[in-house]
């Protein structure tokens, strides 16, 4: 199996080489399908402080696994702590938090297009709107709770067109109904807000449970998973799932976990929500939320992503060695595949 993988990888690298060296040969570029057209990206944070993160690609048919694709295509490293990635129709925006930058590459060839290196301070997550505008959450100085902001990017010239000061600890964000919902997980501390951004200003702030760490949209409802205040804060609070009406931006309902339960990594498939809690993956139906739901898979995963009947789970192992991506069938809860990734796999994305 190992040798097989090696051969495939070598063949793949050779293919890449061919693809790269024929930039000006338009005929061939049209014929050769783009290297990363269909498959799974895993962003690997990389070792903290002393190294570079990278991106692993696994083709949709699992036939090729390519490590370190950005460097292999472009001959340069991504930088320190590859936090996350976001997309437009053509491009991938790779947020490199500790290098305070965003690397922009073509999402299908992974050829570098540009990078944004000024105006970002501990950037975390990226989302694009209407193909020409992007929002990036920034912590600023991690121990200064007053300098956190959203950078608004003009994606036509890859510059920062505006900054929006926000409450502290902005983390994940998503776009719904032309508005941006920013979860304030709280950086190295804890917060309990969702900022609703319209254009270049904060339209409203929704108070949710403590430590909103992940969210998904289903129909006109935003589901926010809140981890709760951890034990070490001295004021431990329970985790919760908060339903927000996207029409009114009001909290509709809050479902609470046990006081010592601190869930993370909310994802959804069909009408089911999935999340991580105490070394297990739980499934809960949005039709009748009954916490904690059903434990379906054992494993302490760094992040989860569900899609089309499959659950993708990243195992960061001891955070100082190569991690892996596991793929489970949600119908049977059986593991289908396991692929090696880079160090600290923290984000799972799809190209199709």
């Amino acid at each position, binding site marked *: 199996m190992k040798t097989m993988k090696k051969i495939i990888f070598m063949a793949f690298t050779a293919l890449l080489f061919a693809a790269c060296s024929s930039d000006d040969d338009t005929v061939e570029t049209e014929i050769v399908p783009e290297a990363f057209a269909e498959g799974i990206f895993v962003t690997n944070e990389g*070792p903290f*402080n*002393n*190294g*570079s993160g990278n991106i692993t690609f696994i083709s949709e048919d699992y036939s090729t696994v390519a490590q370190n694709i950005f460097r292999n295509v472009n001959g340069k*490293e991504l*930088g*320190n702590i590859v936090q996350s990635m976001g997309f437009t129709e053509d491009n991938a925006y790779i947020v*490199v938090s*500790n*290098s*305070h930058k965003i690397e922009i590459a073509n999402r299908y060839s992974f050829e570098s297009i540009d990078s944004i290196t000024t105006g970002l301070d501990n950037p975390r997550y990226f989302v694009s709107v209407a193909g020409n505008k992007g929002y990036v959450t920034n912590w600023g*100085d*991690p*121990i*200064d709770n007053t300098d956190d902001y959203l950078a608004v990017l003009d994606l036509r010239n890859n510059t920062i067109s505006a900054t929006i000061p926000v409450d502290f600890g902005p983390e994940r964000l998503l776009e719904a109904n032309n508005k941006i919902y920013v979860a304030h997980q709280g950086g190295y501390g804890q917060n309990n807000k969702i900022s609703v951004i319209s254009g270049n200003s904060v339209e409203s702030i929704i108070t949710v449970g403590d430590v909103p760490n992940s969210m998904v949209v289903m129909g006109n409802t935003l589901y926010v998973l809140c*981890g709760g205040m*951890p*034990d*070490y*804060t001295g004021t431990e609070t329970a985790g919760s799932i908060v339903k927000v009406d996207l029409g009114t931006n009001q909290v509709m309902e809050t479902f609470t976990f046990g006081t010592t339960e*601190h869930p*993370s990594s909310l994802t959804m498939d069909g009408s089911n929500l999935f999340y991580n809690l*105490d*070394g297990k993956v739980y499934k809960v139906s949005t039709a009748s939320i009954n916490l904690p739901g059903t434990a379906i898979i054992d494993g*302490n995963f760094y992040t989860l992503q569900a899609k089309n009947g499959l659950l993708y789970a990243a195992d*960061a192992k*001891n*955070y*100082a*060695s*190569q991690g892996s991506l596991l793929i489970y069938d949600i119908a049977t809860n059986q593991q289908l595949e396991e692929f090696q990734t880079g*160090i600290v796999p923290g984000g799972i994305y799809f190209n199709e």
Partner: protein
Amino acid sequence: MEKNWLHIFFMVFLCTASAFAQLDSIQQLPEVVLTDSKLIHFSKGYKVEKIADSIIERNALSLTEILRYNSSIYFKENGFGMVSSPSFRGTNAAQTAVIWNGININSVFTGQTDFSTVSPLNYSEISIRSGGGGVQYGSGAVGGSVHLNNGFTFQKIDTTHIGIRYGSFSTFGGNMSTTQTWGDHYLNVGVDFISSENDYSYVNKNKKNNHGQFLRFTAKVNEARRMKHGVATWNSEYSYNDRNFSGSLNTIGKDAYQDINTRNLWQLQQKIGRMDLKGSFAHLFEKYTYFPNSQKPHGTGGNAHTFMGGMQAEVLFAENIRINGKAEYTFVEAEGDNVGSNTRKTLAAVLLLNHKLSGKFTYGINFRKEFLNDFDNPFLFSADAKYKVTTNYALRMNGSKNYRVPTFNDLFWNAGGNKELQPETSYQVEVGQEFMFRKVRADVAAYYISSENLIKWVPGNGGVWQPENISNTRNYGIEAQLGYSLRLNPAHLLDFSANYSYTKAEDLETEKQLIYVPFHKIMGTLDYNFNRFSFYFQGLFNGEAFTTTDNSDIVASYSVFNLGAQYTLPANANVTFGGRLKNVFNVYYESVSYRPMPSRNFEIFLNFNI
């Protein structure tokens, strides 16, 4: 690959080599009595290497560099002058004890000493003791210990040293010390500083070290007073470090660190009949502040006071049996933004015995028991022996049980600190052989260390990291040293020394080599002295080391060479000047992954001895 490193080995062996004969013109101090006598009397079966004064003078800026080029200790350094942590025989930084005048000075918070914060100047002696020293020196003396000793004498001395240095990257240094004796008094006072812009370029990377500025200031006072039946001594030092921390190849340095350490030791020695009694009291203070952003005033920090009181009695029976009994009480009081306010009390009882059976054979047996700790009180023991087989050949052996107690960070860090932690324990044995044949000196040592319950921070549920006693390791290796000096004629002296170490350190669960432990390290120095002129060429080969626990990634091996020369004025033997060129071949190298070390650079100095 195998051949490749052999090749390099021989190249280094042939081209270079260490240790150096003291330049004759420098005034020789009378023999001093060290404040820590344990190192001499109760370490017979251990390898104890004294670093020559000339080596310290030539590396006056950095203790890390002294040890990197002259011992088998491997150092990780986050760029020049940045945090520098040792690995002694493949153990980690907290398992290397730094002993100041017999007292363990590793940080209460981290359990380590950052070697960049220690000035190598103005000690009577810097020594390296290989192997476990838990019985004598307490927690953390697992792989070995580095000893910074002061001494005293009542012979007539009146000397003053002044040195000034200048080097690349706007590096300035200065030191001044004076030693005086009069009647029953001995007094030594010294100050030194170094400040550097440290903005070296990263070789071939088109980048600079823009945020690595540092300043170190140290002051030391050592005093002794002879009394009717004994001696009273006071050793004191103060050090201040202010550093910006360098970024890495792909991060911009932003953070900064300030620390202050003070150390004071008062001892009273009395001779009563055949018994030497020594009462001692010590106070250590450490304070640090970490600034995530050097431009902003927000910082987090901590400070700790350590008070030690001890009483020891030493008796020499029949000229060949030496027994030393000691009781020592330690009280630590520490507070910090992340560790709260906590104390620790320890009472240790130590019994040391050395028996010189004959002129050829000597052995020692030692015990230590601690009380009052909150964890299982370790009982430590060690035994050592040395056998001089012939005048040219000696064998030494030692075995010991050692330990390391959890640090205050391990126990109380918020979040994650684990109050249930137990001390790490470790067993080790060593066999060494020493050869002396005319001008050739050689030493070959083999050791084996088995460590249990090593404290490791691991991710727990909910993303909070916690330290646990979970890791078990096994280290073994060999260390070989060779020295050779050749006097070509009365005016020409050639001195060569080389060092090789092989270190295998593996995690017993994964059977992988521990991170940042290179298998191979080779050093060598070739010294050439001609009248008042001296010249040296120094080289280091540091083998590749793994940076991930699954050994999937490495920090590359490197070879670095330095060249130095100095000249003592014929008209006035008290003035010496010289310089050195470091990283002669301008190679790119990292001792920590993505943390480049300096490009080619120079340093010049001017020393006065009055």
